[in-house]
């Protein structure tokens, strides 16, 4: 049973595993990241397959940013300033992020933003 007012607590669920029903959307696929490759090449396989979804997610964040700053200045700031920041990031992260931007075709600043979002989100 569940209460129909927030926080919608319900009896502790049972027999949910193996995952099934409306709370289970999909299992998660596997990819290999070869750490023997140069950092800029490690994520190419993953990103080649996921670049459309990545672009969609970053577009959603840009829509949100533009909702706050309609002039587009915020996105400009991200696209101009964050590429300068990527070279300050410790190895191998800066090079890996550049490789992801190259493989996805997305602007480097926006990939940097995605990767430092935890720290930015506190704003």
């Amino acid at each position, binding site marked *: 049973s569940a209460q129909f007012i927030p926080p919608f607590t319900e009896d502790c669920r049972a027999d*949910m595993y193996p995952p099934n029903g409306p*709370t289970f*959307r999909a299992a998660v696929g596997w990819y290999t990241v070869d*750490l023997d490759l140069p950092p800029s090449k490690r994520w190419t396989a993953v990103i080649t397959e996921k670049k459309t979804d*990545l672009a969609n*997610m970053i577009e959603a964040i840009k829509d*949100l940013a533009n909702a706050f700053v309609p002039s587009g200045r915020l996105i400009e700031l991200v696209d101009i300033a964050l590429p300068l920041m990527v070279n300050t990031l410790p190895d191998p992260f800066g090079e890996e992020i550049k490789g992801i931007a190259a493989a996805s075709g997305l602007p480097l600043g926006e990939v940097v933003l995605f990767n430092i979002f935890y720290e930015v*989100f506190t704003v």
Partner: protein
Amino acid sequence: CTSVVAEDDKGNLFHGRNLDFGLFLGWDVKNKSWTVSEKLKPLVVNLDFRRNNQTVFKSTNFAGYVGMLTGIKPHVFTLTMNERFSLDGGYIGILEWILGQRDGMWMSFLTRSVLENANSYEEAKTRLAQTKMLAPAYFILGGNSTGQGCIITRSRLLSLDVLEIDLKLGRWYVLETNYDHWKEPLFLDDRRTPAMKCMNQTTQPKMSLKTMYDVLSTKPVLNKLTTYTTLMQVSEGSLEAYIRDCPNPCMPW
């Protein structure tokens, strides 16, 4: 987020987590869901990080994100991180970084380097507890021996507390959402109480990946922000992950 490390009565350690993200980042009225959370779900991938053709560690990640939020070093330790809110937050760390003070570590780069380079539970715990960071966080760490499970509560500079499994005290699991364990959670966002109620109802002998998934599937531990659930068992070196949905009625957070 909700992360749990639990030990059953045979000494097996299980580590599970719900990754919740996207709060206030755009609400989709028609679908009653958070926009960014829904856009993140297709990006969820499991990654096998290999060197010399050997698995170094495995992780559940968002494609394009080079840091780690969820991972296992098979037969050694398991690690998840949950967000911690603090006024002394990441924006101060970013400002320091821009101004040239760069001795702190970005949160997910720290977890990545620990998964990649630490070789024991104790070494991982020391690095997570003592490395200066740009933003506060909770690290939930599981080991490969009885009693090895802890929650490290981090400010940007300090380790404020380390709560460990203590079977003698009857603490057979440690569980973290997004609030310091010695304080009450925000009354509008108490996922801790229902989660602990279900863990206690499961009981230690019946703890398994299956029952941990049940706990992580109970509302509001499962909510509209939940993008994926990951289950890890260090002794098996196993990691499995599932993309989640929360049918209405369901808490937005």
